């Protein structure tokens, strides 16, 4: 079951719709999110960073379980966190602070594992690479940086290098608004959008700019087509520009080089985009509080979800392994267990409280399925082999038993024969004696 979740910068909760049927599900309450602040943690539960008034010194992060509308776990990081992201199996949560620091928490324990100064100004967006081993961050200072998590966690190597990042892309001149990464592991492309009215395409393997696309207006959101033929750029003028990546474009296109078309619904600025690979749907959130579902093939709107009056600024498509709501009722005790027990809140500082936990990790051991295997026929073969060799003590024992039984039987037989013999002898002796006495009596 695929659901769409969306949140807004004005408290309208987190809306949740079934993508196939369009039916609205639970609405999760009290959420005012910054852009890129909404995420699911391994599809197990929802997490969202919260907007705070500028004077607030600490951040605010909420968890919702799928089954309850109220936020169940609240965390207060040391500074306001804007973008928030979890890796695909939901073991780590990464948040970008307004000071330019990036924080990595372990979900199961809530421990702050690492924190480092990544940018000069606030982080605006965070993305994991396909295999979750690289982290890409964009910042208000216009910088896009690529981090290897392995490096971040390697305390020895960290001291040997001059900079922690793998690449730092500085070509954007203004705030980076969105980043997406394409397919292909280390050979992927990164597309970033910025307030300088450009989108830039970067090569992850070569670490440099491949293409610069200038738009008529500021782009706040991008979504990439899974075949990387084009990418979609949601703009503040309300249009979604279709921009060529792999597709060919001619210089005579109306909007500028590489821009080969647009999707438009006379709406207010487009604030967020998401692409659903099943069914090739593009979802766009707008400042008018609507979420539009586009069929990219026909370029028509197939569905609209109404979120709230305020601008929608996060859309996430989540594939749930089981239907919402039904999970608690029956049949899936294990998933239920996951769902009902949310992990503890995220810690404020590293190395606080339980130092012992540094040496440990809370892990769900991987499920292994063994086909049942039967042993009897193998055992027969083994034992027969032993029997044929006649060498092992077990066989000897068995043989001895058999011999004993034979012996017993022979003894019985012997006894019997002996008895018969005795009887016979007695009979004969008696006969003889009788005869003699008869003869004797005759003779007498």
């Amino acid at each position, binding site marked *: 079951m695929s659901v769409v979740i969306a949140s807004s910068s004005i408290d309208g909760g987190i809306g949740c719709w079934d993508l196939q049927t369009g039916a609205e599900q639970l609405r999760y309450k009290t959420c005012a999110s910054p852009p890129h602040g909404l995420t699911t943690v391994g599809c197990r539960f929802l997490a969202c960073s919260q907007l705070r008034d500028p004077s607030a010194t600490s951040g605010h992060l909420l968890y919702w379980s799928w089954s309850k509308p109220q936020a169940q776990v609240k965390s207060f990081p040391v500074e306001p966190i804007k973008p928030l992201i979890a890796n695909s*199996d939901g*073991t780590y949560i990464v948040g970008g602070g307004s000071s330019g620091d990036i924080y990595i928490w*372990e979900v*199961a324990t809530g421990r702050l594992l690492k924190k480092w100064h990544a940018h000069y100004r606030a982080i605006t967006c965070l993305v994991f*690479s396909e*295999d*979750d*081993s*690289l982290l890409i961050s964009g910042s208000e200072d216009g910088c896009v940086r690529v981090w*290897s*998590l*392995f490096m971040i966690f390697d305390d020895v*190597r960290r001291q040997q290098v001059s900079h922690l990042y*793998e690449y730092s892309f500085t070509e954007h001149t203004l705030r980076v608004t969105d980043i997406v990464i394409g397919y292909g592991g*280390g*050979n992927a*492309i990164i597309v970033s959008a910025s307030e300088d009215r450009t989108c830039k*395409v970067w090569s992850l*393997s*070569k670490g*440099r700019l491949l293409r*610069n696309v*200038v738009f008529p207006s500021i782009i706040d959101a991008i979504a990439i087509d899974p*075949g990387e*033929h084009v990418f979609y750029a949601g703009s503040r003028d309300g249009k979604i520009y279709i921009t*060529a990546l*792999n597709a*060919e474009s*001619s*210089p005579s*296109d109306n909007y*500028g*080089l590489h821009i*080969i*078309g647009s999707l438009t619904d006379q709406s207010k600025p487009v604030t967020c985009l998401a692409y659903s690979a099943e069914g090739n749907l593009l979802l766009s959130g707008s400042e008018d509080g609507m979420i539009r579902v586009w069929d*990219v*093939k026909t370029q028509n709107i197939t569905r609209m979800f109404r979120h709230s009056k305020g601008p929608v600024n996060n859309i996430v498509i989540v594939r749930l392994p089981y239907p919402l709501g039904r999970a608690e009722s029956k049949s899936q005790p294990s998933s239920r267990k996951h769902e009902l027990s949310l992990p503890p809140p995220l810690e404020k500082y590293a190395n606080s409280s339980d130092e*012992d936990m540094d*040496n*440990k*990790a*809370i*892990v*769900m*051991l991987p499920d*292994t399925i063994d086909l*049942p295997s*039967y*042993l*009897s*026929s193998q055992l*027969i073969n083994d034992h*027969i082999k032993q029997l044929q060799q006649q060498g092992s*003590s*077990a*066989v000897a*024992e*068995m043989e001895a038993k*058999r011999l004993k*039984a034979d012996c017993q039987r022979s003894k019985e037989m012997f006894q019997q024969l002996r008895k018969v013999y005795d009887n016979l002898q007695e009979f004969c002796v008696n006969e003889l004696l009788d005869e003699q006495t008869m003869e004797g009596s005759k003779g007498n």
Partner: protein
Amino acid sequence: MARFDQLENMYDLGLKPVMLRSLIRQYLPAENHPLNLNNSCFELPSLVSIVQTHCLLSELDSQSIDPKLINTWKSAVDDWLSCLLSLLSSDMSDKCWVGICLLGVTCQECSNQRFLSSYSIWLIKLLSHIQPPADSQLVKIASCTSLADLLTRLARFPEVKKDGNLLAGKLVQPVLKLLNEDNVEAVWEGAANLLYALIAFFPASIHHYYDKVEAAIALKILSGKYSTKTLKKLGYCLALLPKAKADKDSWSLMMQKFLISINDHLNEAFQGVEEEAKSDEARRLLVSPGKDLPLPLGGASFKGTSSERLPTATISTLMFCCCKMLTSSYPVQVTVPVRSMLALVERLLRVDGSLPHTMLPFMTSVQQELICSELPVLHAYCLELLIAIIKGMRRQLLPHSAYIVRVVTRYFKRCSLPELRIKLYSIIRMLLVSMGVGIAIYLAPDVIENASYDLNSLGGEDIETSPANTGPATGALPQLSNRKRKHGAKTGSLEEKQDAPSPKVGESNTHQMTPITVKMAALDTLEVLLTVGAASKSESWRSSIDSLLMKTAINSCKRGWGNLESNIFLPHESASVWADFQFSSLRALLTSFLAPARTRPPYLSQGLELFRRGKQEAGMKLAQFCAYALFALEVLIHPRALPLDDFYSACHNSTDGASNRFLENIYSGSQKQNTSFLSAMRRTEQGGVESHDDDLYDRWLQNENENENQNENENIPVEDMKDQTSRPNDPSFTNVLEVREQEPAAANADVHMRTENEIVVQPWHLEESVPKSQGVASAKAVMSPAVGTNPEVDGFDHVAGKTSSTLPNAKKGSSSMVHLDSDSSMDSFPGIVDADPDTDADSD
């Protein structure tokens, strides 16, 4: 007999009851008849195989079967069972044994219905044979095994779970008794089988006896006197035991007990070869200060193992237990003491039998010899533990990954035993796969160094060749430390000196030969490294690895193809090693072709030749792979970047170029009939098709209208294509080129193929795997030259220069447009250059 005549063939169901009855007559000894061990008994395996092959006990029940047949079959199986049960209750142990074994087979083979109706009776019957009065060993073992089979089958019916638990509970005590009171190892093995089935399928039944089971098994393991197989079986049971309680704490407690016990044994074993501080450090990690020590494994302490032998068996079994705990599923989340496990691994791997200076006077050479002889086994288990840690922790290992990498690479430098190196390679592969690109960047140098060393050194396959063949390469590579660690008995410092490179020694020494299995592991590891990390920062090592892989593949195949059929004269495992090696080398070669790179694969032509030969000549598995490789490389040679669905038909409704592209899609879509000739034609032609307001294009449109079935236009006549190919000197060709500049590498490859020989073809592997970035890059180069020279563009330069040195203007991005008849297209090239500033202006 009359019945027999009615049978159709061997699949006739009517055959089954008849067959079963004659089997009973023939093989099963009657009640009062003495069993002749030498005859009927030895035929049991064939009896079992007949029963299993023909499913004689399955009692298929469906509507289509004649009810009379069902009844006959049922009564035959009834007879079979009554016969077995009477054997079972015989007082002759051999008869009894036959009955028990066959009942085990019956548990596996009989129908669900019959099993559910009679399993409890069978269980009670079997149970009586593992209880005193003591019976023969074979009977005991067989009953344990049959009971285990019964439980295995029973576990597949969730509806009888409760009843199953109840019945299984009755078995626990007799099993414990067997473990504790019997003194024959084989019986324990049988008991372990049963215990495993109990814990795995009916954990609740063990719950009350948790401590007793733990104590019974621990006693056996800690005594360390028995065969590895038995100990492993028992250890597995112990590792699964926490499932009986299924809570977080019992898992952690068990793990902690294992680790402490291993640690204690190591302290004892490593006295003299390790500094004291190490053992204290390991201890500190295991038990956090202020917390109580848990009870030792098994409840009470079992001290007093013989001091002459190292407790290797115990330590290795305990490590095996840890592995199993980490890799078996567990119902709840558990706390894994990662750090202390890793510390244990590091501690063990660090000990190599050399003596620290401070210990020199206290050790005798006998003691040292003892340790050195046992160390390889311990190291092997230690690496297994590391593998289990990686498997169990998966992504959550990230904070510790750097530590692991350091331990592994350090050990790699010193390790020279083949089995251990193979394990190390597999650890590296696991790390690469689970941690992805991020780790590949940092692991690459070590992998390259070790793999090149192993692949370049002499191996079994090179025996006939002179060392000169491999000589230069070996010399050029960094030498690893001298492999003869174990003789470094005197001091550590002596060894340091030996570490200096000494290539001569290495080549002449036969002990330096790398076994073929190690080479395979190295190849597999290179393959994974290429798949994961070839895209990132690989410039420094890529070309040498490509050439190494090509060389290895050629060497592996030069003496013909390995035989995949297992040779019945050889022991099982060595049967197809050679073919496996070829398989590994070809797979690695294919990966090196397909992995992203900046230049085209330099050895492609040799590689293709190799695959072609393999496809024709090699055995099934290899030929299949070679066919696959050729198939995969086809995309490399004719790159395609096909749009999603018929995206353009919709997208380009508004723009003028729309229908052109629609057309083009159809062409790329029709690549199925990919004779090289046709595809070459098509390429050339797409140039024509794409041009705006071109008469060729119009004709194509017409063509298309004629062919109503547009999407399957395989039926476009070849003559038409030829016709159009012959006209590329059309004036509109400039436009074609202009469009082409922004085009992805989709359609530009094999024109060169046709004009030049294969080697001068432009870097199409790059296009294949990075189609978009390349297309993008070339476009970029056109737009904003200020960015600097792109290597791809350089690549283009290079190729363009080779293809035709008279085309200096065609460098930027458009070398892909060189046509079959370059003379005529020459005229149009200046057009591109003119077009470039225009494009720039447009975008601004």
